[in-house]
């Protein structure tokens, strides 16, 4: 058993949709071309290449914001502008004494980082379209300010860009500077992309509620990527100013924002290689076809429309031949509950979740009207009741989404906070959802690893630089995820894109993700819906085994069979109140329960 999971884990690293620098061959080729280009001694091509590198430094950062986190930040040229003017003004001595160009470049990065956070803050509160508008507005403002603040920016007349000293002096020296920074940008963003932070970003993008339940704190993570993307944009700006050797406000056009943005989307979200290729293509294209220069933005826009309508996944999707291999038709899910002891780790002692006197109303409707409930470790506690009786609402209160107007919720005697659902994961409370909430574009294994978010120890910086603690994290998390998948019987589908799976398989993937938390309490929201009779029996066996391993299980269900088969205790809700509570046998013969269901 150890052998299969270890070798499976070994196979798992290095491949996968968000895999570390997928398409290693392509990167090696690009690198070789980049290093060898100066041999052509063609300064025109050199300039195009430098421009592509500089745009990629910005786009690599923006890729984390747009491609991974899914934030529609259209006006990102503002970072380029800020970085360019900061670097140029400092190096030219417009603000105090003349700065060393390299230090000025770093200052440009810092400026970009600061404004990256400022521009990103509205993303936490605003709807998508509104946020997109604010980024556009900001880009316009920056250009306007550049026009007006003549002392610093030279106004409409402009200002000279910084000149770097040996070894990166103008010419091929600077070329290698841009190349190196582009390579570094690729490396750090690829590291983030394939780390738990990258997976968390994609989870925020595609399955926000599930991300919260897995312990992912959206605000902090988004601010980190906006900071990084802003810094990279600022540095790209400084390089840009140097390449142009003289900058004016109208060098920073809306079309550039469009180019960066579209390059990422054409390349495909959640990928590093795709956007890199996209950016290179869009930069180089107009240079090689003269009439295209005028029509370049039109071309970008029509490409974007085409992508959105036809291939939303972009180039990366087209290149993903691994996920086009047909899957076995009649797949069976065969869980292996005997692996649970290893998955769940050491038990924390007898868990107890108590709800006392919980009351909650929405508008005038009493969703929960005085609820007492106890969920014990080692037991499966069923929660049933007619539609609208408050089952899912109860689950949501325990998950921390709603604050009740009355009552207490305690875990092992300690009060649990409300309206902070992302804190539940670290307390060992895991859940699944009525409709499976997974990241369709990511692989099954990556989806399960999202559940490992709170177990990771490496910081964002350690992940970015691929330091040993991060590598150890990844290895352990991959092994744990493969183990969880084996437990639910889906290890064979580990590298398949999640949206190719059948509905019943998705339910078991959610359970595997929940198991990653090594939960003291596991809550399941109607897991049997849509499953075949066989699958329900296997599901029942798995749930029972989870409880016997010490976890407290709360099972919200409609399926009478499942409830009566595996529950140790059952609570029946009706109109937000407890109608009856007891063993399944007691509930089954309870007259009032039957009446409530039959509606007499």
């Amino acid at each position, binding site marked *: 058993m150890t052998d299969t999971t270890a070798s499976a884990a070994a196979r798992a690293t290095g491949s996968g949709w968000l895999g570390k620098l997928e398409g290693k061959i392509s990167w090696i080729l690009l690198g070789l071309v980049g290093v060898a280009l100066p041999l052509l001694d063609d300064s025109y091509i050199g300039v195009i290449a430098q421009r592509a590198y500089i745009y990629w430094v910005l786009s690599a950062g923006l890729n984390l914001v747009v491609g991974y986190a899914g934030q529609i930040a259209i006006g990102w040229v503002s970072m380029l502008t800020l970085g360019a003017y900061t670097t140029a003004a400092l190096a030219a001595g417009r603000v105090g004494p003349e700065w060393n160009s390299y230090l000025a470049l770093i200052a440009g990065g810092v400026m970009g980082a600061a404004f990256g956070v400022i521009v990103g803050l509205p993303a936490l509160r605003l709807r998508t379209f509104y946020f997109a508008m604010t980024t556009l507005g900001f880009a316009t403002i920056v250009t306007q300010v550049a026009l007006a603040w003549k002392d610093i920016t030279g106004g409409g007349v402009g200002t000279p860009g910084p000149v770097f000293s040996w070894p990166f002096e103008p010419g091929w020296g600077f070329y290698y500077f841009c190349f190196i920074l582009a390579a570094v940008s690729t490396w750090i963003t690829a590291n983030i992309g394939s780390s738990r932070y990258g997976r968390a970003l994609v989870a925020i993008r595609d399955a926000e509620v599930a991300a919260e339940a897995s312990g992912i704190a959206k605000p902090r993570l988004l601010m980190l990527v906006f900071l990084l993307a802003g810094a990279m944009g600022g540095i790209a700006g400084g390089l840009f100013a140097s390449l142009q050797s003289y900058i004016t406000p109208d060098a920073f056009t809306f079309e550039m924002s469009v180019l960066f943005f579209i390059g990422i989307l054409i390349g495909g979200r959640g990928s590093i290689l795709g956007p890199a290729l996209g950016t290179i293509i869009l930069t180089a294209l107009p240079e090689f076809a003269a009439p295209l220069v005028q029509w370049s933005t039109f071309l970008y826009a029509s490409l974007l429309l085409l992508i959105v309508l036809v291939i939303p996944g972009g180039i990366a999707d087209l290149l993903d031949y691994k996920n086009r291999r047909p899957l076995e038709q009649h797949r069976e899910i065969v869980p292996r509950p005997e692996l649970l002891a290893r998955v769940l780790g050491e038990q924390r002692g007898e868990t107890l979740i108590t709800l006392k006197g919980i009351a909650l109303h929405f508008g005038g409707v009493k969703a929960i009207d005085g609820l007492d409930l106890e969920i014990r470790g080692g037991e499966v506690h069923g929660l049933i009741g*007619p539609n*609208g009786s408050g089952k899912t609402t109860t689950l949501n209160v325990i998950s921390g989404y709603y604050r009740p107007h009355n009552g207490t919720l305690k875990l092992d005697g300690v009060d649990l906070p409300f309206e902070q659902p992302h804190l539940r994961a670290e307390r060992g409370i895991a859940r699944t959802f009525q409709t499976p909430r997974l990241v369709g574009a990511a692989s099954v294994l990556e989806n399960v690893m999202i559940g490992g978010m709170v177990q990771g120890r490496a910081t964002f910086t350690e992940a970015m630089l691929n330091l040993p603690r991060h590598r150890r994290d990844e290895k352990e998390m991959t092994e744990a995820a493969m183990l969880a998948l084996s437990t639910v019987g889906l290890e064979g589908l580990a590298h398949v894109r999640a949206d190719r799976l059948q*509905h019943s398989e998705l339910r078991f993937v959610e359970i595997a993700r929940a198991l990653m938390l090594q939960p003291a309490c596991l809550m399941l929201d109607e897991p049997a819906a849509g499953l075949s009779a066989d699958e329900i029996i296997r599901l029942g066996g798995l749930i029972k085994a989870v409880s016997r391993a010490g976890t407290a299980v709360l099972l919200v269900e409609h399926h009478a069979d499942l409830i009566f088969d595996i529950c140790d205790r059952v609570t029946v809700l009706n109109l937000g109140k407890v109608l009856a509570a007891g063993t399944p046998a007691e509930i089954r013969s309870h007259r009032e329960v*039957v009446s409530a*269901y*039959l*509606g007499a």
Partner: protein
Amino acid sequence: MPTSAPSKTPLLQVSGLTAGYGKIVVLRDITLTIGAGEAVALLGPNGAGKTTLLRAVSGLLPRTGQIRFAGGDISTAGPRDTVRAGIAHVVEGHRVFTQLSVFDNLLLAGYGVAREARNAQVEEALAFFPEIAAKRNDKAVTLSGGQQQMLAVAQGLVARPRLLMLDEPSAGLSPVLVDRVLAAVSRLREGGTAVLLVEQLIEKALAVVDRVYALARGSIVLEANAGEADLASRLEHAYFGADVSAPLAS
């Protein structure tokens, strides 16, 4: 059982109906019939697929299988066409347009009716529920839950449907109002409109219908006449235990 004589051809014939949401299959291979002027109850525990079945018949969801209505095939029709064919679907949760007046709500229900006849048919529908007729110019948001439910049922009547499908009209209503709504169902049946009634309140539903289907876990598990003696216990079995299917007593 309906014979093959033309006068006994069922109004609604559903066979092999399968439907769900995205990848989730909720209904498997459903077969049922409703005769002209017949009132039929569709019972079953939550999650069984009752609402899904209504949505599949009226075309609000994609589905496979065959649906024939009044001699025509509506297997692939959308909601607009099924309304034109003569089916009215009163959805769950008394969803009326709160920002419009009672009268406007009813006018909209008559969108497909010829303009000359529209007002008259709206008045007909209002006549079923004098309580809301009195509030015809008030915005629907000022109506109580029960009144909104009556308005929703009245909406279903404007186009003079041959089959009226009601999804849990009693939900959230006091017993008195439930009786009012179900009394309207009786009147409709007497007037020759077929009714398909999804309900949680079994006894009240059985009192106004001719036949009953029970749905559990996406399949029909019971079909019986409303008056049969041991129906209650058979339903209990169907909900909580082994499937108990009994052929319709002929």
